[in-house]
């Protein structure tokens, strides 16, 4: 489903993305989502040199705000935006928030939009979240062993391994490299080095998924600002231009099991609008709830062909100093998954990289970045996918 003739997907004009904020995660916290989001917005406004009242746009993603939504949050936090968005798309939240905020800013519907993803993680809240996740999951996936996302991704991973010959060693290589990256990122939840041997010997969770294929649910928040280039410059903020962004939902519904994501439908458009090619990308943030999804993104985002993911992994080094720097803050696999903030982690990280504000190891000469999102296992597959290309503007 390409854009209809006569209404082409237009590029973005002078949209600036700035002020990457990561509120350090904790494994369990008694605090609420409101608390975590407030901390992110507080840091966002302080570092931007603006008042909370200057935020005239707000985009919120959170699983744990219930019974509130973004609406309740405005009164709770004393904000009066003229543009408000609530994006319940899990791992695709940040890319989708950015896409929408960019259009709002471009049209003048808002001038400064705060995009924020944050979640609480109290003891037992993960179990409760699972139990009310979606109707299809309730009806047709939880009654089958109740493995949660681990069970669903185990099936995709099993199928992918059988079809394309990926091995646990290949997935391990991704996880080990990300752990190396995480050790340079002070906010990462995981602080211990991980060897391939540790990875391979970890206990099984849902075969073929083992412990280090899984993210650690935790509490935290991530945020960034979307504004015009003029305003960003007035405020003296380092920023990146948004070159291109795609989103897609429920792609390839007739695939009997997921072996590709929605990116594969829109990837040509992603690069064409950005005016760059995969070779021009200096740093990548894939959505890494499980390493098989990382491998699928290498394929579906055009870094290699379908089925070549395992070979691509074998021939690259994914650390910040390697041949293909990706998930340079460790990704969710090593930095932790703070609910919807997990969808923000990669985008916020590459924004830091291309604006030279990195907290983790700086990728040398990083200028153009791709951040990808993937979310919402509604039944047997992830439904939302998205990707954005950002280019840092050096002062």
């Amino acid at each position: 489903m390409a854009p209809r003739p006569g209404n082409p997907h237009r590029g973005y004009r002078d949209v600036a993305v700035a002020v990457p904020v990561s509120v350090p995660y904790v494994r369990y916290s008694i605090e609420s989502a409101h608390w975590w989001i407030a901390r992110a917005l507080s840091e966002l406004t302080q570092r931007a040199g603006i008042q909370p009242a200057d935020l005239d746009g707000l985009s919120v993603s959170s699983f744990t705000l219930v019974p509130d939504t973004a609406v309740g949050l405005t009164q709770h936090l004393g904000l009066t935006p003229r543009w408000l968005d609530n994006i319940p798309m899990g791992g695709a939240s940040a890319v989708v928030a950015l896409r929408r905020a960019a259009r709002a800013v471009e049209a003048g519907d808002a001038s400064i939009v705060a995009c924020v993803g944050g979640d609480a993680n109290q003891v037992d809240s993960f179990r409760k979240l699972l139990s009310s996740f979606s109707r299809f999951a309730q009806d047709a996936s939880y009654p089958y062993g109740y493995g949660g996302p681990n069970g669903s991704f185990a099936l995709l991973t099993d199928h992918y391994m059988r079809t394309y010959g990926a091995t646990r060693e290949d997935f391990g290589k991704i996880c080990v490299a990300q752990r190396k990256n995480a050790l340079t990122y002070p906010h990462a939840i995981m602080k211990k080095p991980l060897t391939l041997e540790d990875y391979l010997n970890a206990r099984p969770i849902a075969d073929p998924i083992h412990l280090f294929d899984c993210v650690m649910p935790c509490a935290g928040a991530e945020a960034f600002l979307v504004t015009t280039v003029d305003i960003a410059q007035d405020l003296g903020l380092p920023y990146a231009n948004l070159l291109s962004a795609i989103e897609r939902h429920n792609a390839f519904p007739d695939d009997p099991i997921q072996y590709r994501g929605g990116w594969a439908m829109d990837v040509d458009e992603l690069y064409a609008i950005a005016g760059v090619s995969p070779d021009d990308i200096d740093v990548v943030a894939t959505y890494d709830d499980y390493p098989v999804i990382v491998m699928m993104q290498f394929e579906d985002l055009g870094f290699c062909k379908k089925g070549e993911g395992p070979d691509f992994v074998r021939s690259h080094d994914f650390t910040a100093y390697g041949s293909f720097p990706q998930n340079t803050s460790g990704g969710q696999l090593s930095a932790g998954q703070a609910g919807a903030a997990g969808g923000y982690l990669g985008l916020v990280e590459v924004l830091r990289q291309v604006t030279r504000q990195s907290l983790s190891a700086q990728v040398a000469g990083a200028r153009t970045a791709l951040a990808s999102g993937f979310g919402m296992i509604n039944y047997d597959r992830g439904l939302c996918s998205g990707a954005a290309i950002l280019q840092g503007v050096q002062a």
Partner: protein
Amino acid sequence: MTTPIAPPPRKDPQKVTRPPELPPIQRSRASLELSAMAARGVFALQHCELCGTIAYPPRDACPKCLSINLRFRPVDDGGEVIAETRVHTTPDLYFRQRMPWRVGTVRLDCGPSVVAHLHGDVEVLSRVRMTAKLDKSGNAVMMALPAQETENMADDVQYRELTASPKHRRALVTDGRSAVGQAVAAALSKAGASIIFVGIAEPWKPFPGEKELAAIPKVEIMPLDITDTTSVTELCGEIGGKTDILVNTADYVRPGGLLAPGSVVTARDAFDVNVFGLQRLAQAFGPGMRARGADGTNSAAALVDILPVYALANIPSFGFYSASAAARHSLLQCLRAELRPGGVRVLSVFTGPLEDDWRQHVPPPKVQPSQIARAVVTALEEGIEETFVGDVAKDVAERFLDDPKVLERELGL
């Protein structure tokens, strides 16, 4: 092949009985229709009446044409496993007690992919026969079985969770005086039950088939009069802790409508056996069974009641008998909900008119006790909640599902 289940060891009274937990119980209304189909042993999926698409999971609109005309209909149950996993970790208490648990993705020949429980004898690329069965929460789940019967297939531990198999279980049959009770006892013995307690009221009175009954392997005759609360309580005190399957074969049948002379007296007798008898049994045995629903190989598994199909609609020639059956049916619905927290099933076996002295004037086709006994064992072995035995029962059920009001007129002619 499946490793046959070993007879369970003697229970250690010092050990804590595993508390019954249920698999996730919440379902959408569309999914409950799948459960209703599975309750009757039918594998059915939603069909779009407009474009013919077969959809799964159950939903409210067609994913191809947006039509809201979706109907469950039986479908081809063939498929192929395309992915599998063994789940080792879960926050769910039911599955946690039973880890690891095998699950797979099955591509059905009729279209949709289904996440299903996997029988131990199937793996990736196996051809399978998909079934929908009720799990311990009473909801339908899909299980992929080997396309061809394999050795000891029913002993698969995941499959056994979806059935109430009599193998290695101890059963109580409530009325050994009746031909149906005797046939059920014999069938349970053949199906591998480890003990069959058979209740006899006024045991000093001889009855036809007495010798043959006592000769059935594993049968133990017990005194039981279900119209006497003390008798029921006393028997429960003796065997309540080891009754895994209770089959109520008691039935008091008399012809006549409400206008027949003396109908209040006979109706009272009928209700005392058919309704209050079931109630006494449930009150005595129910709580213990509910507490032992997850107690290993010989956990409490099911209460089976055999009742006339006229529970669904009154046949005036047996007017108050039908009324007692309707009350019995209603009590079973209540009991089903009350025993569910223990994962104990309530199975209703609806029968057409039996070949016996009280129904000499009823035209054929009639049901033989052996047919009923076979149906009881099948219901247990396959976990079927509602069974209709004989052509009359099947016919009445079909008419009932079509329109109960029309059925009332048909039976009342």
